[in-house]
């Protein structure tokens, strides 16, 4: 018997179930969205974010903030609408607009700063939610040593429960969803906190 049939057979005989027997309904999802308005969510996110966070009054202000953090270092930016609208993709030293995976990988691996947006930002615990797409590549927030996220204020939500309420199945939207809730870090040597072990050692958040 092939392994697939053997395993399923063992399971069914162990549980006393027959082929195609439907299961009873699973326990209902446990999603409790706290009653918070957008402003409260933003305030909480600014307090909880595990890196430096700023609030930009305008797109021009966001561009200014990002330019200041880059400080002349090499950078790669995603093609997220907010980055294009704010003119961040055209800042000096910033490369963007890649469609070829090899070219993107090489530039991301050799850039000091990676600039992305986020599809959602969670107030508690403070975290970014990035869905991989043609405009938001997964390597930009990963390969460089510094990550800056520029996030429109409308995507800031209360937390995990609200995220799974508005996006019950992320697999329908993207092959990859990642939560970023801190810099890359390790405590594997004597539990001493060390940053930037494989990914960025610094993360910044700019809310527009």
């Amino acid at each position, binding site marked *: 018997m092939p392994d697939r049939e053997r395993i399923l057979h063992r399971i069914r005989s162990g549980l006393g179930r027959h082929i195609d027997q439907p*299961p009873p309904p699973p326990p209902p999802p446990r999603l409790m969205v706290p009653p918070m308005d957008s402003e409260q969510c933003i305030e909480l996110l600014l307090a909880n974010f595990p890196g430096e966070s700023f609030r930009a009054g305008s797109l021009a202000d966001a561009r200014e903030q990002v330019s200041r953090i880059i400080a002349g270092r090499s950078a790669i930016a995603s093609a997220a609408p907010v980055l294009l609208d704010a003119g961040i993709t055209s800042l000096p030293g910033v490369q963007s607009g890649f469609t070829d995976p090899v070219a993107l990988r090489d530039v991301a691996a050799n850039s000091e700063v990676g600039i992305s947006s986020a599809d959602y930002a969670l107030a508690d615990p403070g975290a970014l939610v990035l869905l991989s797409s043609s405009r938001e590549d997964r390597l930009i927030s990963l390969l460089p040593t510094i990550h800056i996220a520029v996030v429109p204020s409308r995507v800031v939500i209360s937390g995990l429960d609200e995220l799974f309420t508005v996006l019950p199945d992320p697999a329908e939207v993207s092959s990859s969803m990642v939560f970023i809730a801190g810099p890359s870090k390790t405590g594997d040597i004597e539990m001493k906190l060390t940053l930037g072990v494989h990914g960025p050692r610094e993360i910044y958040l700019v809310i527009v």
Partner: protein
Amino acid sequence: MSASFHEKIHVALSDLTLQKTIRTSTQRFIEKRRDVVAPEVLPDYQELRTHANQLKQHTLENLDYYLERLESKVQERGGKVLWCADGESATRAVVSIAKEKGIKIAVKAKSMLSEEIGLNEALEKNGLEPVETDLGEFILQLAGERPYHIVAPALHKSRHDVGELFAEKLGMERSDDPPVLTAEARRVLRAKFLQAGMGISGANFVVAESGAVVLVENEGNIRLTTSLPRVHIAIAGIEKLIPRATDLAVFLKLLGRSATGQPLTSYTSFLAGARRPGEISGPEEFYLLLLDNGRTRILADDEKRQTLYCIRCGACSNVCPVYRRVGGHTYPGAYSGPIGAILTPQFHGAGHEPALPFASSLCGACAEVCPVKIDIPRMLLTLRQETKKVTARELPTRVEKLGFRIWSWVMRNPRLFEQLGFLSKAVLPAPSDGQWIKSLPGPLSEWTGHRDFPPPAQQSFRELWRARRRAGANSANAAVRGNVADGNRNERRIGSRTDHA
């Protein structure tokens, strides 16, 4: 096996530096966890545990249904499910994909399952280069050791150990500075990431209705492993399934907190197949390997099924008074600590590791911290019974049998019991400040060779009871109350005696 378990205990106990390291590390884990599950921070912690327990129970009781749902979802997105009945079938499947695609280097993200099936050894034997990329696992691969702790694999290594190891194996200048050592690992591993044709990850959760795997980490090596190579293979035990993505709202709140005391780890990846049209980076092919390797046998057992609820957070090891003394390498197999003590004997059949279910004081700390509410102490007791039934070698000797017969006879004769109590008070050394007796004569020395014996109380429970009944209702109450502490000690002593019997 059991003999070597006992030998290893003594090795661990006599290493004072190691004792200190284990104690400090687990203590930090305990404190960090306690802070983030405190009622003021997470008021619904107990409800989350109950809900997680119910979700696991439901999924496992209908596992065939969810596995088939999962398979069809993975296939819908062009992925492939590899069903593997045992470790050998699993390693063969991975090796054959690597060979078929002409892959030489496989980067690996921390996976307990990979340890369980000896994947690295199998890859090496077939001329492939497996590279562990989690810093702790990378250190252990260089040292040729297995993980010490489910969450912190290199917990037992000091910075000096790592400095020496890196100097010898990587040819770097000797340093004892964790940031310098970490930077060197980043440099070496980044090059491997960019060369590797295959990325092998585990899975913390497998979401049936999404056809997705969920991975939590702090370093970013899992993201690299699952994003850079052109082939991604996720390996998971069949018990890792959860029904829906929405259920993560429960599990993710528990896992990080229980494992490392973090509300959410730095990175959580939800991966549903290979790169899709339009997406630029990401693997071109996705495989999900589902392993049985003894799990269906555990599943078939109504009582022990809950062993499979485990989400591998390691919290039970941190609080376990046995793990905290004997350390991770003393446990046979890939899984250490209380969960290892119930998992390993079940994987290999009762009697294979006869000492394991007994390596516990049954204090219950593990059950108290378990985020999915596995009743580990009860599992241990059941496994003790099963072990005793199958291990002929450890059947009671004639002396033991005689001893138990005398014991049951004494217990059925109150007067005799009491007289023996008097006798023991006369024979045993007088209790000075409640000090425990360190050695007993004759055949009883066997017992005190491994543990101390509690001293007899000044007054037995029966004496106290009679005093209470004799005394007038009011006049003597105060005096009796003063003796209650003594009486309690007496009761506890009786309890501990039967435990050991």
